[in-house]
């Protein structure tokens, strides 16, 4: 069975299970909506452009948040890989902050920045930056030392060593870090948007709850799920696999 056939089968099974549960009538339809209700609601959200507006806002936030986390995390990770002392000082902090659910920063972010985009950005970035920094540091530290020595004897110096050897050699781990960072940023942003009621997917979710519209909540969940999978599969996973194949970590399928 091909990969896509398996995926299609799994989706069909899920749908069947959902419809089956709905048919049992254990929960009333307004609490546990049928698949068709969710599809209709999704259509309504598309038609009224509510979804488009939410998508636009969420995308803007996640892009900015992820770009900041990625560049900041990369820089921090490289600095920590470069200096033992810096790594000893910042390492435990980065590890600690990395394991902290970033939504816990939300109250503080509001006190510091107010109810605005900057608070959202703060939560998103603090969710992803440290994971990316930690992955970058370990990725750079684990490249075979003979790569750097070989490049040095061929005449590579300073920045050349980084741009031509260290970064390409660490690319597979950097990508894994970026992928992890993306998923952390996405989770943090969704949580924060639920509390920060200003457009975005989180806002649509909260609105569904306030209007007791379970179909809307489910419709938005489907979209959020779809977005997450799409970015992970279409973007990170694909690039990661291509890179790993080139490095010979994975035999080509």
């Amino acid at each position, binding site marked *: 069975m091909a990969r896509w056939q398996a995926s299609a089968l799994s989706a069909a099974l899920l749908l069947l299970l959902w419809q089956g549960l709905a048919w049992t009538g254990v929960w009333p339809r307004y609490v546990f909506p049928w698949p068709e209700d969710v599809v209709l609601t999704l259509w309504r959200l598309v038609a009224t452009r509510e979804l488009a507006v939410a998508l636009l806002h969420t995308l803007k936030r996640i892009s900015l948040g992820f770009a900041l986390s990625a560049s900041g995390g990369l820089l921090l990770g490289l600095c920590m890989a470069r200096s033992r002392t810096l790594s000893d000082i910042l390492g435990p902090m980065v590890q600690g902050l990395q394991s902290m659910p970033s939504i816990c920063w939300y109250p503080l972010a509001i006190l510091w920045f107010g109810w605005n985009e900057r608070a959202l950005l703060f939560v998103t970035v603090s969710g992803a930056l440290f994971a990316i920094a930690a992955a970058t540091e370990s990725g750079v530290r684990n490249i*075979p030392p*003979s*790569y750097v*020595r*070989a*490049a*040095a*004897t*061929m*005449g*590579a110096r300073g920045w*050349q060593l980084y741009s*031509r*050897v260290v970064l*390409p*050699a660490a*690319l597979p781990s950097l990508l894994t870090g970026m992928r992890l960072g993306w998923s952390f940023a996405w989770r943090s942003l969704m949580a924060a948007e639920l509390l920060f009621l200003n457009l975005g997917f989180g806002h649509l979710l909260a609105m569904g709850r306030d209007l007791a519209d379970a179909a809307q909540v489910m419709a938005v969940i489907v979209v959020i799920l779809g977005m997450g999978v799409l970015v992970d599969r279409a973007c990170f996973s694909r690039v990661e696999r291509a*890179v790993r194949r*080139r*490095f*010979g970590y994975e035999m080509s399928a």
Partner: protein
Amino acid sequence: MRYPAVRPAQPELSLCSVTKHFETRRGRIKVLDRVSLNVRRGEFLCLLGPSGCGKSTLFNIIAGLEAPDAGEVLVEGEPVAGPGPDRVVVFQDGALFPWLTALGNVEFGLSLQRIPRDERRERAMAALELVRLARFADAYIHELSGGMRQRVAIARALALEPKLLLMDEPFAALDAQTRNIMHEELQRIWVRTGQTIIFVTHNVSEAIRLGDRVAVLSFRPGTIKREVAIHRPRPRLADDPHLMEIRTFLVRDLRSDAETAVEEELCDG
């Protein structure tokens, strides 16, 4: 005629009283003790010694990857102050870059020197042809066998036309058959290019088959305890009876040092 009729007065490489210590938990250990050595232009010198005798340290000092505590390393009379493309290294694991093709790897050092693209490609292809891998120019490293990888590593070094080619047990990780082929190949390449080579190994047969001269390092502190010139025409075969004699002599000579090294390792463990 292997050497130029008029030899340059100055040796290609001079080591003058090179001394190096290591700090360990059990105190300061003298790894190299006043090692002096001259290498002529076009010479193939093998540095032979048991593991732990400091030959890798000496190698790193010549490459400029480590600095000696005392003494001097001169290349064409100029003191060495760090790694540089006049002394290119072939490592045991090849240290080839998996994100580049074979050709990309060979071009790497040339591109650091900002050599224009066309010339770069030409020189890299010539180097790949020299190691008979031109057909695999577009292959990625993981697609090549161990022996082919070391050929690429040699091509990558030769493309830079270094004054010294430094080889650190480059065939130690290969199987016996492949190693034998690589010995033949390296002799052929050396005869064709006249490249000055310093080849580090703990394998006696390898050292005497390849070298014009074998410098034997003693175990801790490392000093050059013997130099053996090997006058055999090339290509030399692995079972050359003349080489066998030298081998028997050197193996006996190395035995006590090797035993000391093993005992020390056992005590450490």
